[in-house]
């Protein structure tokens, strides 16, 4: 795995594109990695301009997922008791005493 600055702009673009499309498989983390990984290369001149678009989309998708998951989790934690048996069924390890 070569470090980025050894890669040509087109390669970087393809990497970014692959990671972006890969992220649609419920992989917001991949989007995040994509951004963190490739963002510094945006400064480079030989990197095609589309890359920026892909990265921005990745950020947006990542944010969307983040919001979704956090809201869901908050909902779950607070409503767990009231949901009763169904909540227990989807709980991994039911915490004792609460």
């Amino acid at each position: 795995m070569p470090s980025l600055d050894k890669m040509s702009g087109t390669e970087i673009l393809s990497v970014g594109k692959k990671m972006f499309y890969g992220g649609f498989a419920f992989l917001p983390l991949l989007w995040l990695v994509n951004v963190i990984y490739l963002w510094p290369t945006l400064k480079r001149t030989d990197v095609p301009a589309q890359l920026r678009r892909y990265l921005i989309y990745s950020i947006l998708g990542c944010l969307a997922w983040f919001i979704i998951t956090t809201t869901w989790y908050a909902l779950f934690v607070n409503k767990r008791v009231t949901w009763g048996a169904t909540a227990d069924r989807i709980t991994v390890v039911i915490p004792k005493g609460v």
Partner: protein
Amino acid sequence: MLLLSLLLCLACHIHFTNAQDIATSLYPYIYTDLGTWPCVRLLNATGSVGCQSTSGTNGILYQLNTQDDIENFNQNIPTSWEQWVVVIPYGLLTPSNIQTLESSKRLSGVIAIINSTATPGSPSRPSSYSPESKCPNCEFGLYANDADQYTWNPNGNSMIYEPINIPIFALDPIDVLSATAYRQIMENLNYNIEQNYRNYPLRAVDFSLFMWAAVDSATCLRRGWCFPVGGSSVYSTPSPNLTGNDGKPIIIVSATMDSRSVFHDLTLGVENDISGMVAMFAVADALSKSPTSVASFPKHIVYTLFNGEAWGYSGSQRFVNDISTPFQCQNITGTNTCPIKGAACTQPCVRDTDFTNINFDNIESVVEFSSVAQSNASGKGFWAHTDDSTTSGSLLQLFVGQGNGTYSIQDAASDGVHRKLPPSSAQSFLKKKRSIASIVLSDFHTSLDGYYHSDYDDTLDLATASSAICSLASSAARSIWLSAQGLNNGTVPSQVTADCNLVASLLDCMTQNYSCSLIQQYYGVNNAARISHYSSVFSFGGVSLLSLFAFNFLGDKNGVRRMNGTSPASCQSITECQAHEYCIRGTCVSTLTRYHDAYGAGIGYNYGTGLFDVIDESAPTWTESTWNPPSMRVYTVTSTRHQVVELVIGILWLVSSIIIVLYLKRYLKKTLKIA
């Protein structure tokens, strides 16, 4: 080299297995573990009651002796940031007091002293302390729907119905272990008092009392983290050929087998359950001595000892339901979750089906012994409580007539106030069929015993109690002997008299010395001095010590010995006897004495999942949570100020060293071009 080291280590490891890690070896120098009697969490259909705490709740020991101390706790505590564990007399353990203490935010736990005999000067017991509600179990009783129920327990503070989020432990020096715990706590408490709670280091306690269950019975049963409160009732009858369709009326002679209190390990209930149980035993013994066998009488006599009565009449309600509803057994082969081995029926899961012989419609009258120990000496004599003077008038007259001088039996309604039945199993029968004649015999008239369902209910004057119970048992036995023959008066043979020595020894066995000679006759028990009368949790086929004794005793009194020629057929174990025979006191006895399941009527066993679940929220659904082993330990603590000082010193030391190192580095770089 590797192998060498391995061998070497093998050797040293095998030789020095006594090695301890530092934590283990240091532990005894810091902590003293004490035996504990916690108040635990119970749940019902609507929520949870009792105590719980996550592990590691700790605080400095602090003594509160009087009500004023509690009121002024907030002002008196020396520092406003430490946590305290208050040591209070059990009598001050009331919801309001706990609330007052908790409101100070400085309370982390409570230690309640029940018997403070070891320390003179500490406050004595209040005349009455009952943690029960003012009308115990009324919501499950016969008069649940009545507009104005009589409050039988006016001085009840319903402590046992309080959900409390701090740990509460009891101290009661009744045996060696608890005596050490008591002494330890007291010594450390006195040390703190000498230090005036200000000169650190002081002595602190920490509890762990972690309850698994939460929310309510339905939830915890579903999660399998709690079990229904209950046990096994015992019923027995002298008439072996009792069947449902023989048309003979049935007289139920009943008593309660269990009691209740804040600390289940200490539950004894001398007044509440033991006295009545002993009285019933005495009656059974007296009637068994009748020259003409009671089995031949025109009416059947059935003795019933109900378990779990303190928890919404669990035993009696279940018994009544089972005998009043037609029993059909569908034996599910294959997926059969009935835990009982050799069950007569796997669904419903029952040991035996003999209870079907008791036809509820044939039940004519119920005679129940409530608390009859006369310990609260409110005027010698007993009171006969009835639901309705018309239906049970004749029975009442019979009993009143049989009462003798010193311990007379009076009609509780004789003062013109009709209070109906006190909390009793009879209510369960009448709930099904109001026309049953019922009479509840008790030593209280207008209100329940002052220590009703309290941990204070643990002492009695053996002489007075035994004589009282003895006389009551005699008169009751005579009354029942008569009524079993349908007579209203007549001469009862002198044999039908309670054996006062038996009563005395029974009382002794039940209260203090469970491994007494009387019980040793039936089966071997050793070093079981005082057993808890809390019905504990129900398990299929499980039998508590009390049920075991009741079964053997009643079976012995009501059973028929099989004679090999002249001598009774002797046995060592039940395997040596024929079917339907039991090996009681070394002889094979055939008797109609059975256990019966007793747990909340609102709880049902789910044969699909093999778990219990709540089927009726209105009926009693009490469950007890599963808990990690509770622990309480004493140790020394320093003040928070002291600890903060340590922290500050550490930080200063660290920062200064950092500064020195940085300075030297720069200095060396600058001057020496190195480092």
